């Protein structure tokens, strides 16, 4: 291999004047985490609402949930981001569209919202499966005790369902963080984007991507470890993972 290795490149100043190349990658990491966190909050909120709707006795709610999930699941994330970023401002009334286009940090908000809605369909499916896995008697007992539907979900079904689906939710959270890399296409300089621009400025392809890879692995390890602890902490006594 006649590739010229230069691992010291990380401590050389970057052409943007914002410190070293390492600082550049770390700022990308921070943006990845911020985007991922905001997207995950949106995904959890929307996913919970839609997931619950899919389990309600109402036919209308079920069909809305079904259409929502199919809509967000059957388009590539990249296409969805383009729709949010390029198409939505044009379809809105002129003034609203203009405001949207001039929003500072537009790539960040678009990425967070786009990835959030994309992931919310997956969260909804998981939650629906979680609620479906509970014995029917739980809902019936809640009704017999005089709880309203809202109370039954709030105090009985959701606390159980969320704890049961914690492991798959962990991997959906990791997917959310990984998916932020797609936002490179709308100009978000997250970790992959910063590694790419470092490669373009310094021509040190493999050092840049190795560093980004290690950072992603690190984030993964931290999230997985943290979720293990959370899983043990909230485990339901009597279930396999419980005490």
């Amino acid at each position, binding site marked *: *291999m*006649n*590739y010229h290795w230069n691992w010291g490149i990380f401590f050389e100043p970057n052409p943007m004047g914002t410190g070293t190349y390492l600082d550049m990658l770390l700022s990308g990491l921070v943006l990845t985490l911020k985007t991922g966190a905001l997207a995950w909050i949106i995904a959890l909120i929307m996913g919970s609402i839609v997931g619950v709707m899919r389990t309600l006795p109402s036919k209308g709610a079920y069909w809305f949930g079904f259409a929502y999930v*199919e*809509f967000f*699941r*059957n*388009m*590539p*994330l*990249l*296409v*969805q981001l*383009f*729709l949010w970023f*390029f*198409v939505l401002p*044009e*379809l809105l009334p002129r003034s609203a569209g203009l405001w949207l286009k001039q929003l500072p940090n537009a790539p960040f908000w678009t990425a967070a919202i786009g990835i959030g809605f994309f992931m919310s369909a997956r969260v909804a499916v998981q939650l629906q499966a979680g609620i479906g896995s509970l014995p029917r008697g739980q809902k019936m007992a809640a009704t017999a005790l005089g709880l309203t539907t809202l109370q039954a979900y709030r105090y009985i079904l959701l606390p159980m369902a969320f704890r049961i689906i914690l492991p798959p939710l962990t991997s959906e959270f*990791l997917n959310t963080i*990984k*998916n*932020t*890399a*797609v936002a*490179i*296409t709308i100009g978000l300089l997250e970790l*992959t984007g910063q*590694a*790419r621009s470092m*490669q373009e400025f310094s021509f040190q*392809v*493999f050092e840049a*991507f190795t560093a*980004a*890879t290690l950072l*992603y*692995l690190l984030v*993964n390890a931290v999230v997985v470890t943290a979720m293990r602890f959370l899983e043990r902490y909230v485990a339901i006594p009597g279930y396999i993972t419980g005490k």
Partner: protein
Amino acid sequence: MFSNFDFEVIRRALPYLFYEGMTFTLMLTGLAALGGLIFGTAIALMRLSGFKILGRIAGVYVDFMRSLPLVLVIFWFYFLVPYIGQWVTGASRPISVGAFASSLITFIMFEAAYFSEIMRAGIQSISRGQPAAANALGLTYAQTMRYVVLPQAFRNMLPVLITQTIVLFQDTSLVYVLSITDFLGAASKVAQRDGRLVEMYLFAAIVYFTISCVASFGVRRLQARIAIIR
């Protein structure tokens, strides 16, 4: 809202979009699914082989691939494949690899990690008595896998495998980051040339949506049929 919506732009771009773009996307999806399935099965067999080292290697590979974003992996292979080619062929300079070959290798290696987990679950779903019976009949390990375990594992997992292929079909749009003319790339090129982003991106979204919807509807029917046979 749709007053200045130009359907003519889409109509004129149709041959380019489908002959150039969709052909690339479908070829990439098909070949990557096939390659990913073959490599994925090999990795799954390594993990279940009982040889500690082989299992470790396969496990590390799968975990590694699954913790990286696809976009980063696409960049990795795009820059790495020429050097690997140089090393394999013994050329004096990094060889140039076409866009198609580069993205095909990327997707095969990436999807192999996901397909291997599906095949592993499929192989583990076969009851223990079957390989034991095959062994008692005098079948070798290769024969047991070839005639007894893998056909059943494959059939049981077929719906999941197809679902993963639909995900792969959607993910191939990410080759956009290398400016390759897949379906979305073609749509984007026309959109930028004619200044018609709204029309082209909406059309691309509808096409992806329709294909994925029809395919997942097919999977649901298949699942129902397989559930009855079992």
